[in-house]
């Protein structure tokens, strides 16, 4: 049994845990950072999908909603999802923050202004060297989406990312073998360790240890960490599991889950595109993305994307013969994700099994916007010269002209027919002043127990952004400021 005694124990080394470990250890606190997944470094990243999904992703990328309709991708390794994400940096907008203030009781949030939140976002982006993706790193696939959107008069933007010295290999989602992507694995955890932070990997936290109503540490198979303060940062799915196993009985734990499901769309071009090389996601069509105080984030966005052949083939509908014919044009593919912010309505349920049940049914409004997004993306690709767009759902015919897009209106949206991906689960342990409907108070403290803070994407009342890394890091930055003061 490995035992540690520290002032602060942080569970999870992703966007929140990594930043907290960095801030607290560099402020002189004795810190232990506990990660369920393996300790990894760039030397481990072989760029092989079969090896890397198994090593870096939860359930080898197989975590999904109970009906199998949405694959919920999360990192399970040192650096968490920041090790396997696309590196996009999209802070919370004023519209979303104001939405939370007006509709979820965040009010003046103890004096934390929108400017404070933006400053936090700027600070964590500075840690990562984040900035706009240089024009010469926009690969052809993203450029085709941009050309198509431009010819249709649709607004778009170059995304910001956290890559420094990127060589465009294209393997961001299975670990950057060059340390160019500066997730917490590169930007925060090494500095935290230099400042004395203890690291425990392959360490699944079973529960928070309580002395009466006060937390005194965490424990799991083969280890125990005694601490004055416990910070839960295990993500919107698995933080709920730790609370469940620790006896937290509130019905609010696991409720109000948002998944922000994304549907992938593939287009085939006459010329070679090689979408699997270069920065996978550098351009987004934001024409229909909305953000305001009344509704939060709404509409949809279309983002260029790439993936290796294994994941691409698993997402494409049709028979094997059709798939082989299609994959023979793999180098001619361009792809995008139709990202549709949703409303909180799912639930994470933990029982006796080692895995949760993730209940999620897209709303009619979500499906309506998703159809519109798929149609808009198809239109962009056709305008950019695609010879055909592959219908994303089983049974949807290929689309070769504007007239064919009508098929999208009637295509099946059943979960088994339309494979979707969520890389941004949020909202299962809501932070709000209303004790009945929230798990966390406005100081990030878990209700009903002393000495436990919670900071990850689960605290957001609604979807925070089209990409949650910077919003989560911003919250961690604010929490660090709060506890250090």
């Amino acid at each position, binding site marked *: 049994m490995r035992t540690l005694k520290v002032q602060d124990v942080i569970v999870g080394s992703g966007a929140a845990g990594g930043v907290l470990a960095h801030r607290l250890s560099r402020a002189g606190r004795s810190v232990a950072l506990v990660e369920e997944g393996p300790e990894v470094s760039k030397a481990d*990243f*072989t*760029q*092989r*999908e*079969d090896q890397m*999904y*198994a090593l870096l992703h939860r*359930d*080898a*990328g*197989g975590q*999904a909603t109970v*009906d*199998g309709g949405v694959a919920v991708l999360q990192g399970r390794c040192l650096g968490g999802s920041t090790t396997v994400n696309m590196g996009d940096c999209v802070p919370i907008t004023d519209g979303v923050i104001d939405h939370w203030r007006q509709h979820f009781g965040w009010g003046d949030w103890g004096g934390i202004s929108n400017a404070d939140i933006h400053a936090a976002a700027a600070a964590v982006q500075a840690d990562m060297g984040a900035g706009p993706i240089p024009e010469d790193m926009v690969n052809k696939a993203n450029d085709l989406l941009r050309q198509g959107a431009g010819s249709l008069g649709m607004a778009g933007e170059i995304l910001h990312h956290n890559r420094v010295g990127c060589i465009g*290999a294209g*393997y961001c989602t299975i670990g950057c*073998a060059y340390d160019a992507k500066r997730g917490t694995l590169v930007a925060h955890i090494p500095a935290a360790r230099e400042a004395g932070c203890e690291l425990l990997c392959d360490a699944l936290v079973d529960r928070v240890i309580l002395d009466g109503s006060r937390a005194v540490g965490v424990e799991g198979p083969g280890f125990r960490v005694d601490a004055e303060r416990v910070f839960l940062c295990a993500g919107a799915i698995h933080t709920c599991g730790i609370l469940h196993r620790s006896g937290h009985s509130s019905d609010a734990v696991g409720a109000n889950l948002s998944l922000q499901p994304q549907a992938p769309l593939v287009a085939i071009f006459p010329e*070679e595109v*090689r979408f*699997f090389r270069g920065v996978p996601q550098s351009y987004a069509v934001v024409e229909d993305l909305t953000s305001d105080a009344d509704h939060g984030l709404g509409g949809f966005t279309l983002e260029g994307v790439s993936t*290796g*052949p*294994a*994941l*691409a*083939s*698993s*997402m494409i509908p049709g*028979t*094997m*013969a059709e*798939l082989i014919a299609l*994959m*023979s044009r*793999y*180098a*001619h593919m361009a792809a995008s994700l139709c990202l549709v912010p949703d409303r909180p309505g799912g639930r994470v349920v933990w029982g006796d*099994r*080692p*895995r949760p049940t993730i209940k999620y049914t897209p709303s009619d409004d979500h499906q309506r916007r998703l159809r519109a997004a798929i149609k808009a993306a198809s239109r962009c690709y056709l305008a950019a010269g695609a010879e055909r767009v592959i219908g994303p759902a*089983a049974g949807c015919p290929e689309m070769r002209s504007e007239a064919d897009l009508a098929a999208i209106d009637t295509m099946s949206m*059943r*979960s*088994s*027919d339309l*494979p979707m991906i969520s890389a941004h689960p949020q909202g299962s342990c809501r932070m709000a002043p209303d004790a009945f409907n929230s798990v966390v108070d406005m100081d990030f403290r878990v209700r009903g127990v002393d000495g436990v803070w919670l900071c990850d994407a689960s605290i957001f009342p609604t979807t925070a952004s089209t990409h949650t890394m910077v919003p989560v890091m911003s919250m961690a930055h604010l929490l660090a400021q709060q506890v250090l003061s």
Partner: protein
Amino acid sequence: MTAAGTSRRQFITGSLLFSAAFAGYHAWGRRPWAEPPPSGELPGPQGTTLVAAFAVMLEDDAAAARAAAELDASLDADQLEQLGLALKVLEFAPAGPLTSTRFSRMDRARQTEVIRAWEASRLGVRRQIAATLRQAARFIHFSQPSTWAAMGYDGPWVGK
């Protein structure tokens, strides 16, 4: 009321009990998997079902066997248990609880019909099982370097 004075409720209850007994006979009465599964892998009969399902998905027996072995080796005990349960349903009730032929003993054409029917089934659990098997088979198959050249994919840069 239905014939012979049997109420609708009794008729439905009787049918359900019969179906359950029939399914139970097929699933457990023959004790096809009486041997405890070896640690870390599917027991032989379930493995046979998996290979048969993958062969339909990949339309290639050798690739199916390789993919099934890869999947088998990559899952933990809990995942194996869930996969085994799904494969049991596919094996013993490929066309409903009254099916008399096990999936793995069907010819390829009939297996393909079953998988297609499951993919389009009104029952969510069938669609989910079929979709999961299809995605897993394809993921594993196309992660093999032997498939890359035909796609124009030049593989990892690391080590080059």
